[in-house]
């Protein structure tokens, strides 16, 4: 063929080919990382594939409504973390973060004990994507519920 590409177009084709290969490689890497790169397990992961008791794992999910109880010693809280499909009972001894309330997200480091309770060594509060002034809080209770339902449905 006599219609040789202009150098400019040659370079364009080369760069596009290189980018396609690069994006393909990146997608493969991300596919390989799916699972491993997650920061925590959700309760349904624990339910479907329970880690052996005593192994350090990180659990994340929503604190179920009405589940927070302070035990008799006054510094231990027991609550239930759920993701809409499964729940895990959690026990934690220590000071809880300010944002630790029922219906909000939490990430706990710890291990399962023999009877299936998750014993947490540390507790982090997870902030969701909603930003709302204090004055509007009561007005949008229904909206907040809808958001919780939406997040827990995944």
């Amino acid at each position, binding site marked *: 063929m006599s219609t040789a590409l202009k150098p400019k177009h040659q370079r364009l084709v080369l760069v596009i080919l290189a980018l396609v290969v690069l994006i393909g490689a990146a997608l493969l890497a991300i596919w390989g990382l799916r699972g491993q790169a*997650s920061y925590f397990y959700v309760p349904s992961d624990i339910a479907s594939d329970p880690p052996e008791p005593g192994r350090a794992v990180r659990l994340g999910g929503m604190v179920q409504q009405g589940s927070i109880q302070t035990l008799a010693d006054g510094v231990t809280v027991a609550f239930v973390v759920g993701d809409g499909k499964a729940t895990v009972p959690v026990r934690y001894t220590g000071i809880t973060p300010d944002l630790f309330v029922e219906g909000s997200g939490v990430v706990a480091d710890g291990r399962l004990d023999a009877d299936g309770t998750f014993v947490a060594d540390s507790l982090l509060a997870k902030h969701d*994507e909603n930003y709302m002034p204090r004055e509007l809080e009561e007005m949008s209770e229904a909206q907040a519920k809808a958001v919780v339902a939406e997040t827990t449905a995944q």
Partner: protein
Amino acid sequence: MHGFANPARFLRLARWMTPLLLVTGLVLVAGSLAWGLFYAPADRLMGETVRILYIHVPSAWLGMGGWTTIAIASLVELVWRHPLATIAARAAAVPGAVFTAICLATGSIWGRPTWGTWWVWDGRLTSMLVLLFLYFAYLALANAAQKDGIGAGSRVTAIFGLVGAINVPIINRSVVWWNSLHQPASITMGKSAIDPAFLWPLLICALGFSLLFGGVVLARMRAILADFQAEARLRRRAQRELATGRAMSSVEGAAT
């Protein structure tokens, strides 16, 4: 497009655009920060800590925007060999790195009271830190390549700028693909989970920081162009001196 690639025309445009962008950006940032920091309400859960949003979020956007600029300019440099594209990519690197660093620092300060920790290695935080390291590597590479002007070394820098762009969509999607401590995006295509009381100062702040970013990039481009011109002039003079057979000592004599 070719019209703007002409350095003389670019300089004429940049001469009045630079101060315009810088001053408008400064005014918008000052106004919206005053609004956000002193007049906007506190958040229902986070309280006053929410105010860090007005610096953190625009910084995050511009940190990623900086690398997007580098990637587009690198593509133009590699394919069309426009010298201005090379200069634009170099000029965007330092402000991009600064905004990324501000994003990481403010995020960490926000994380301590909100989450209860300064830092965790989740997908979003880690990929943002990788972006900062990519900026450092890019700046080192660009400095090393500067010696041969716009040549092979510069092309290596451009390839790095293009390859590094793969991190930008990863940062954006990290909170969707992997469970992370960082919350998912609040503002997505036409929808916002941020109350208008916070959203308006945030958007104006983001616009102001973007204008500042543009102004800094233009100012740096002008500086780099001036550097190139000065260097080329010196080189021409040195060649002329050699051609007329005068010794280097007479050049020094004339200079004093």
